[in-house]
């Protein structure tokens, strides 16, 4: 079936370095816009209502950030404590330097146990390393069981939001997909679509040899992993199959069991605007007696994959405080216009614009730190107070000036624009000298007569772009007001003379 007005197809988008073209494509997608409008309004209202039930929201954010800062400052110690306690309770810990190593470990574990069918619950860490593709290549059948993720998997797409991965798709598109892939009768009833998914996935759960999940928090004090959800698919994934494999980024560790209270107040409210999600599973090792319920084996794969590098500077280190709530996506005026796929990476929105360049290498994502107006809405809503605008500026400066300290292998800037650099040097020189500044204003006033159209400079006439192409990058999308006939300094001088 063709729906000329309904595109929202993630397959048309390029990688992070194609952000500019991706954004243009997304801007032309009508259906994406109405989906994003719905997201912004619904999640915005729900979040507001949910945080109003907390007495001291600001204090809670500060407390959460302090816990994260403390953990990150001693991350090695807390990771060792977590690993020791989890192993003492019967879990097996695996350490993986990068995504390939994670996939290799998981494929080995599955092959050794002759496990051919895997059920998976939503995990951004496994999306990040493209685990499903690796499992598929190893002939291991993998089924996503979160409704949104399953829709995405059936459509061969990628998530466009951290919390609601299929937000870009309409009910109609999902119904058509279900008609085609699982043979349901056409319907526009969300309850019917949901129960169709329940029926099909129940079968997958029944057949599964292993379950793979992510981790929201790992508690060092007890070796516990905590996973939040609403649907119940995570509970099934971690209860029914004989083996449970959990993939955990090394930044997910928190020191104390009592700290969970803080994060369980912040994460659901920021993510989905709930006081608490329907289910939390707190899993500490494996079952004690053979007749107990649950898997026989629990494997926790601790994954670095570029995270430890982010510790090398206090500004970049903040990235590791993120609890993946998605609030910054919903609040971002850029994300609100273009959605998740335009970022060309698993992590979209403001947090994606700072994490992606650090994870995949800044030269592969030079446009993302510029995908922001630095308005600060992300910082306002972030439950752990990550200063995303400061991070964006930090990364921008690394792009033009080279790495700031750290142990980065990269030396020197990613892209040095000598003309731009020179222009800014001249600008700084002139604008910090009153005499030159005034001459500049006078000269500008003479020159602008040539380029002012309808009282504006830039976009309207397109003249700048034609006569001085480098400046076209600035004026292609925006107008500048012309220099005033009399500057403030000139007016000030005149009024002083009159006195």
């Amino acid at each position, binding site marked *: 079936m063709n729906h000329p007005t309904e595109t929202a197809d993630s397959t048309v988008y390029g990688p992070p370095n194609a952000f500019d073209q991706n954004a243009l494509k997304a801007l032309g997608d009508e259906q994406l816009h109405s989906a994003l409008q719905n997201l912004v309004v619904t999640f915005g209202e729900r979040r507001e209502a949910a945080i109003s039930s907390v007495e001291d929201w600001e204090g809670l954010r500060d407390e959460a950030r302090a816990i994260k800062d403390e953990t990150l400052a001693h*991350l090695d110690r807390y990771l060792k404590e977590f690993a020791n306690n989890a192993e003492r309770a019967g879990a097996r810990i695996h350490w993986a330097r990068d995504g390939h190593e994670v996939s290799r470990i998981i494929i080995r574990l599955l092959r050794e146990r002759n496990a051919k069918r895997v059920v998976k619950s939503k995990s951004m860490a496994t999306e990040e390393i493209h685990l499903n593709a690796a499992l598929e290549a190893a002939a291991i059948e993998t089924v996503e069981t979160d409704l949104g993720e399953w829709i995405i998997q059936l459509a061969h797409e990628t998530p466009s939001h951290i919390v609601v991965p299929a937000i870009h798709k309409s009910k109609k598109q999902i119904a058509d997909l279900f008609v085609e892939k699982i043979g349901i009768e056409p319907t526009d009833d969300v309850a019917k679509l949901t129960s169709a998914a*329940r029926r099909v996935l129940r079968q997958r759960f029944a057949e599964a040899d292993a379950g793979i999940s992510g981790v929201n928090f790992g508690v060092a004090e007890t070796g516990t992993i905590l996973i939040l959800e609403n*649907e119940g698919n995570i509970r099934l994934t971690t209860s029914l199959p004989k083996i449970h494999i959990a993939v955990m980024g090394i930044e997910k560790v928190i020191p104390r*069991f009592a700290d969970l*209270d803080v994060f369980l107040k912040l994460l659901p409210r920021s993510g989905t605007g709930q006081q*608490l999600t*329907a289910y939390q599973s*707190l899993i500490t090792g494996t079952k004690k007696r053979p007749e*107990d319920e649950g898997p026989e084996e629990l494997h926790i794969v601790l994954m670095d994959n570029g995270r*430890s590098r982010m510790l090398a500077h206090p500004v970049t280190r903040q990235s590791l405080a993120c609890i993946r709530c998605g609030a910054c996506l919903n609040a971002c005026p850029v994300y609100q216009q273009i959605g998740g796929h335009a970022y060309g990476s698993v992590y979209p929105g403001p947090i994606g614009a700072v994490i992606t360049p650090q994870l995949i290498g800044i030269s592969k994502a030079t446009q993302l730190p510029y995908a922001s107006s630095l308005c600060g809405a992300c910082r306002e809503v972030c439950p752990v107070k990550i200063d995303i605008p400061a991070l964006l500026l930090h990364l921008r400066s690394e792009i033009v000036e080279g790495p700031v300290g750290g142990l980065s292998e990269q030396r020197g800037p990613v892209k040095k624009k000598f003309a731009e650099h020179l222009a800014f040097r001249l600008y700084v020189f002139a604008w910090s000298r009153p005499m030159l500044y005034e001459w500049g204003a006078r000269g500008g006033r003479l020159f602008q007569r040539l380029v002012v159209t309808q009282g504006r400079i830039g976009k309207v006439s397109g003249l700048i772009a034609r006569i001085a192409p480098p400046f076209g990058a600035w004026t292609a999308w925006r107008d500048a007001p012309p220099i005033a006939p009399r500057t403030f300094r000139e007016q000030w001088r005149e009024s002083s003379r009159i006195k």
Partner: protein
Amino acid sequence: MTETEHSTEARQEILSSIREHLAASKRFDGQAVQPQTAQPRAKSNSAQGDRNETVIERFRQALEAVSGHCSIVRNIDEAARAVQQIVDQRNAQRIAISDSTLVHEILRRLKTEAVFLAAPNQSDLFDCDMGITTAQWAIAETGTLVLESERERHRLASLVPPVHVAIIEANRIRQRMAEVLELIKSSDAGLSRTVTFITGPSRTSDIELTLAIGVHGPGELHVIVIDEPAQPA
């Protein structure tokens, strides 16, 4: 290289990478705000039973706000009658039950043709139309049930069937999450291998953010609170 050697090498490398990068950050750390050291949160002073109207009422309201059903009864006979009503209404034929004594005492009081399965295998479990468990704790401010695996075989009976009935004694309800976290950590049986927090029925908003109840877990959650009046001395 064996897998163990691989893992040991990866572990060493990750831990030393963390240490090296933290050390490299030292000369910049002064410019930024110093990381604060988190203080453990103050423990709540309501360690007592919290057994009063407001806590139970708060629990009921919070549970109903997330589409759960709540009945408050005065004794085990009334609890059995409440369960009987749900079983009759749903015409339940196969009921998965936990190994809790309280659940068994209630079952003895039921009049029904339904089959009770104490530790059903997977395919039997998938055919059950109801599950009955207790809960060890509840959190009033969010309407949350807390189930500990060391206390009760709860995991599948509370999850797989489309209807979950949970019975809880009123003196197990606490006002806040922090109190319950402390209780489950310092439990006599030790921290359970699995602790499950349940707040309302299973739900999803994955299709156009439209709320749908009962996707993978139960679509109905009934909580029966037994609030026995204090015995006269």
